[in-house]
């Protein structure tokens, strides 16, 4: 059982304070979708949880250990991050990209162990990348490349998986990758936290929704508890309406009907 918790965290980029005494915790088996308007601090929360940004106040603890006391390679064995940028001009193959997930565990001179080989093969298999394994990653479509970096993060065999806007580069039809990811995360009992822009995607993907505004978590719960008309209007303004569909809330733009 893994836990990752931020307690009363304040974080800033130079003078600009983005997180204000923000608290958030998650554990194994949870799939958390973080939503909120632009500038609410969603990506910053994720960077703080990943140890990429040191908070100016408050603590982040991984299984009770202060994240600031762990080395990058110790963190990488337990927390994987799916990068938002995954374009590269260098002709790495898909298999090589997935193998990057093992960086923290490689021996001297980058030698791979039997475990490394198995973990890479498993991640490739789980994301259906076998047919693409020898292809150059810079020549794949956005959706295929996304799958390659997801496999890279899975190959890390971390207990926590953090994703920042994983859908920006995807066509609507490629969102199935997220469903696949959710199933894999459940099977591996990962603690998953994804920043998502789309409220519908968030309520379909997450077992738990966290709403952020002005650097704080203002609501936290199951999709149906959180995504309702009052909250959506309060956070995003009155351009949206909420309807229920198959036990999931659905958020639609409120468009005035033509006269």
């Amino acid at each position, binding site marked *: 059982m893994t836990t990752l918790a931020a307690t009363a965290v304040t974080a800033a980029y130079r003078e600009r304070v983005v997180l204000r005494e923000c608290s958030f915790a998650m554990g194994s088996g949870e799939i958390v979708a973080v939503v909120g308007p632009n500038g609410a601090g969603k990506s910053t929360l994720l960077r703080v949880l*990943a140890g*990429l940004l040191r908070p100016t106040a408050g603590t982040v603890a991984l299984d009770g250990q202060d994240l600031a006391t762990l*080395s*990058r*390679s110790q*963190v*990488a*064995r337990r*927390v*994987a*991050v799916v*990068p938002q*940028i*995954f*374009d*590269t*001009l*260098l*002709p*790495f*193959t898909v298999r*090589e*990209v997935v193998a*990057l*997930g093992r*960086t*923290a*565990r*490689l021996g*001297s*001179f*980058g030698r791979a162990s039997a475990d490394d080989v198995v973990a890479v093969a498993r991640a490739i298999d789980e994301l259906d990348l076998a047919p693409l394994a020898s292809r150059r990653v810079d020549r794949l479509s956005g959706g295929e490349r996304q799958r390659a*970096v997801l496999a890279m993060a899975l190959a*890390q065999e971390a207990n926590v998986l953090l994703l920042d806007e994983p859908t920006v580069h995807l066509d609507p039809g490629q969102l199935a990758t997220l469903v696949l990811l959710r199933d894999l995360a459940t099977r591996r009992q990962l603690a998953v936290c994804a920043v998502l822009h789309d409220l519908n995607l968030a309520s379909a993907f997450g077992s738990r929704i966290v709403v952020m505004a002005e650097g704080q978590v203002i609501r936290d719960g199951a999709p149906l508890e959180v995504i309702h008309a009052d909250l959506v209007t309060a956070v995003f303004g009155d351009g949206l309406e909420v309807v229920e569909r198959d036990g999931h809330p659905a958020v639609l733009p409120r468009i005035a009907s033509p006269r």
Partner: protein
Amino acid sequence: MRTLSVLALLAAGLVVSAAAGILIGAVAIGPGDVLAALFGSNDVNGTIIRELRLPRVLGAALVGGSLATAGALLQGLLRNPLADPFVTGTSAGATLAAVAAIVLGLAAPLVPLAAFAGAMVTVTLVWRLARLGGGTTVLTVLLAGVVLTSFAGAVVTFLLVSSDRLALQLRAVLGWLQGGVSVISWPELGVAAIVVALGLGFALVLAHRVDAYAFGEETAATLGVDPDRTTTAVLGATALLSGAAVALAGLVGFVGLVIPHALRFVIGATHRRLVPASFLAGAAALVLADLGSRTLIAPAELPVGAITGLIGAPFFLALLVRSRRIVV
């Protein structure tokens, strides 16, 4: 397996190039006499082979290998196939420091160290500038290189013109600046070889961590690389290699750009393979280029930088055009 065959092939290519470099020259010396000269005959041939051709071939190999390895590291770190010590201005920074050391009258073995320091300052500056650019760094790096190269060039010109010490040997210094392996002595070679060995050693140890920079510095960190320490170490290795190359042969362009780039088509982008392959291929390529520089218009000599520029510049333009979709 394939990697090993490629490396073996490249090593064989280096040996053949070196043999050609020793056998061929302005004075015709037969293979038998060359062998005799290598093992210590005391006639004129012995002097030509042991004091001129052999140090020159070894020097060219060190310069080419260093530049190509430094290019591979820089391209990986900056995620930019258009980077090498020459276009980033790192070589120019090393040149400036080396010229300053000569003007100040420092002992000859200290010149490579000065060149290393100059390279380190410049390459760190380039890295900082590239980081300001955020995700896309290609254009920033090239512009930084242009600016740093012209700045260093201006200071070097000022030093050359105002220094009495250099006025006497202006021609030699100018030849060196344009990229020439002609003034190599054994002690000079020894110091450079130690610096290169250090740089190459670091490069081999760090190679697999450079791979992690493929999607940027922050992703390298999440993959378990300590970004500050690793970046400094990789820049240090780059500076050792570029500094040694500049101390031996001045400004030799484009070897560091072309060699790693061409090799990626053969053995892929993984730096664990690319770094040793680049060293071997760069060494062989510059030994051949140097052979061309002293035989093409013999008895006159071209600076080897002219040859690498002739081949490398069009290659660079082609790359720039091909990558233009991501350059902006």
